[in-house]
C-alpha cells in the first residue's frame, strides 16, 4: 500500500518549524522516526495534507546536562541514542530499561523520544488496513459513532501503549511545548488527556521540543516491567514503572511514584506520594501497592490477551518492579 499524497517540508531549525506549524498546523503532521505516523498513513488511519520532516532540525537532538543539574532530552533523540547514553544508564537506569523494552533494535534506531511520547492510542479493531476495517462499523476513533471493543461504549476505549511515558512520569519529567512566539513547560502527565480518541493535550500548531528530567536524587531506584507475548517488537500488554527515593538505611520509602501503561487510554498514575510518602518498606506495603495497581488498571478487550489477565498482571508486574527496584 502506497502512502497517501502530501506536501513535504523539511525545515532546518526550530523557528522555521514553528512558522510552518503556524501556517499548516491543523492539516500538518510532524514526522520524526516515522515508526508510528507512516504506519498509520499506510493503513489510511492518517492522511495529513502536509508532512513536516523534523530529521534535519539538529537543535531537537541530543541529551544535555543543564546548569541546575537537570537533563534535557531533545524530542528527536532516537531511542538508540538514549540507550547509548552513559549518563542515562548510570543516573536514570529505569529510563534505560524502558527504552530497551521498546520494539526491537532496528526500530529503536528510528524511533524518537518525542515520537514515543506522542504515539497514538491503539486498538485491535482500529490499527488495521482499510479493507479489514470495512468489515466493522466505523468506530469513534475513525470518526464514527460506535465502539467495536466495548459493546454499547459511549466513547473511544483505545489503549495507550507507550513504554517511556510511565517511567518518565514516575521520574517527574516535564515536557517543553512550543508554538510561534511562546513556549511552555508542563508535567509530562498533563500531556495525556486519558481519552482514546484524542490522547494528547497538544495543539496542532505546537511542537514537543524536549523532555526535562529533574536532577537524579541520591538513593533513588527505578524499575520498568513489561508484559508482552514475544520478548521483542510487541507493544506492552500492560507495563509498570516505579521510582522510589529511599532513606539512607533503605528501610523507608521517602517518596515515590507508580505508573501503569496499557491499562487505559493514557498512562495511569496509581500512586504519587500518597501510599509511597514516608512509608516503611514491608511486604504488606508492597502488597497494598500491587492491589492498588490491580484496581487502577482498566484494560478492555482490544489487544491480544484478555483484560482480566492483564488486570491481574498489573498486580504481578507492580510487585515485580518494586521487588527488583528494592533488590529484595
Amino acid at each position: 500500500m502506497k502512502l497517501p499524497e502530501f506536501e513535504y517540508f523539511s525545515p532546518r531549525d526550530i523557528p522555521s518549524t514553528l512558522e510552518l506549524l503556524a501556517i499548516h498546523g491543523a492539516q500538518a503532521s510532524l514526522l520524526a522516526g516515522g515508526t508510528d505516523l507512516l504506519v498509520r498513513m499506510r493503513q489510511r488511519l492518517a492522511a495529513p495534507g502536509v508532512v513536516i520532516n523534523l530529521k534535519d532540525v539538529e537543535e531537537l537532538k541530543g541529551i544535555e546536562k543543564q546548569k541546575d543539574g537537570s537533563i534535557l532530552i531533545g524530542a528527536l533523540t532516537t531511542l538508540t541514542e538514549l540507550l547509548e547514553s552513559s549518563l542515562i544508564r548510570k543516573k536514570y537506569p529505569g529510563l534505560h530499561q524502558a527504552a530497551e523494552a521498546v520494539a526491537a533494535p532496528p526500530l529503536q534506531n528510528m524511533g524518537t523520544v518525542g515520537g514515543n511520547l506522542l504515539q497514538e492510542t491503539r486498538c485491535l479493531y482500529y490499527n488495521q488496513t482499510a479493507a479489514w476495517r470495512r468489515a466493522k462499523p466505523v468506530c469513534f476513533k475513525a470518526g464514527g459513532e460506535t465502539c467495536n471493543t466495548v459493546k454499547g461504549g459511549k466513547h473511544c476505549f483505545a489503549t495507550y501503549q507507550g513504554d517511556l511515558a510511565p517511567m518518565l512520569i514516575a521520574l517527574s519529567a516535564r515536557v517543553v511545548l512550543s508554538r510561534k512566539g511562546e513556549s511552555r513547560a508542563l508535567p509530562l502527565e498533563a500531556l495525556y488527556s486519558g481519552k482514546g480518541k484524542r490522547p494528547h493535550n497538544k495543539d496542532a500548531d505546537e511542537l514537543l521540543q524536549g523532555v526535562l528530567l529533574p536532577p537524579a536524587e541520591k538513593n533513588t531506584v527505578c524499575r520498568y516491567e513489561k508484559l508482552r507475548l514475544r520478548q521483542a517488537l510487541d507493544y506492552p500488554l500492560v507495563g509498570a514503572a516505579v521510582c522510589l527515593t529511599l532513606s539512607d538505611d533503605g528501610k523507608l520509602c521517602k517518596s515515590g511514584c507508580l505508573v501503569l501503561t496499557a491499562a487505559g487510554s493514557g498512562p495511569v498514575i496509581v500512586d504519587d506520594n500518597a501510599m509511597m510518602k514516608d512509608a516503611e518498606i514491608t511486604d504488606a506495603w508492597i502488597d497494598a501497592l500491587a492491589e492498588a495497581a490491580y484496581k487502577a488498571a482498566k484494560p478492555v478487550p482490544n489487544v491480544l490477551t484478555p483484560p482480566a489477565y492483564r488486570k491481574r498482571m498489573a498486580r504481578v508486574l507492580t510487585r515485580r518492579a518494586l521487588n527488583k527496584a528494592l533488590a529484595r
Partner: protein
Amino acid sequence: MTLIPITLLVNGEPYNLTVPPNKTLLEVLREDLELMGTREGCGVGACGACTVLIDNVPVRSCLTLAADVQGLSITTIEGLAEGQKLHPVQEAFVERHAIQCGYCSSGMILTAKAFLDKKKRPKKDEIKKAISGNICRCTGYTKIEDAIATAAKKMTKKSG
C-alpha cells in the same frame, strides 16, 4: 504534490532522482533502481524484511521516506559482496544453511553485518537480541544464530 530532486548514495553509487514525497526508500530501491534484494514483508515495520543500512545502521526502508535520506550512505544486500566474493556473513549463511525460503535473508544478513561490525565476539544472547527485530518463518532462528556466530569468527580472523 511537488516532486523533489534527490541524490541517493546506494552501495557507493550516486543516483540522481526526482521523487514524489510519499515515495518510500523501499519503493525507490525496488522500482526506480531495480534493486530487488530488498523485500517488502509486512509494510508496517514489524517484520524486518525491508531492512537496509543507513550509515551502517539497520533501519526499515518501508518506513523511511526517500526524500529523508538524501546524501546518506545506503547499503542494500546487493552492496555486500565484493565482485564474486561474498561477504563473510553471506558465506556463513550459506555454509550453515541459514537460508530456507530466503525472504528474510537480506534483512537478517544486513542486520547481522551491522551488528558484527560493532561487536567482534558476540555472546549468544547478544546475537538473539540483535536480530530480534527480524522475523523468520522458516528456520526457527537456530541456524541463523549459528551462522552469525560463524560469521563473527570469520570476520575476526580476517581482520587479524
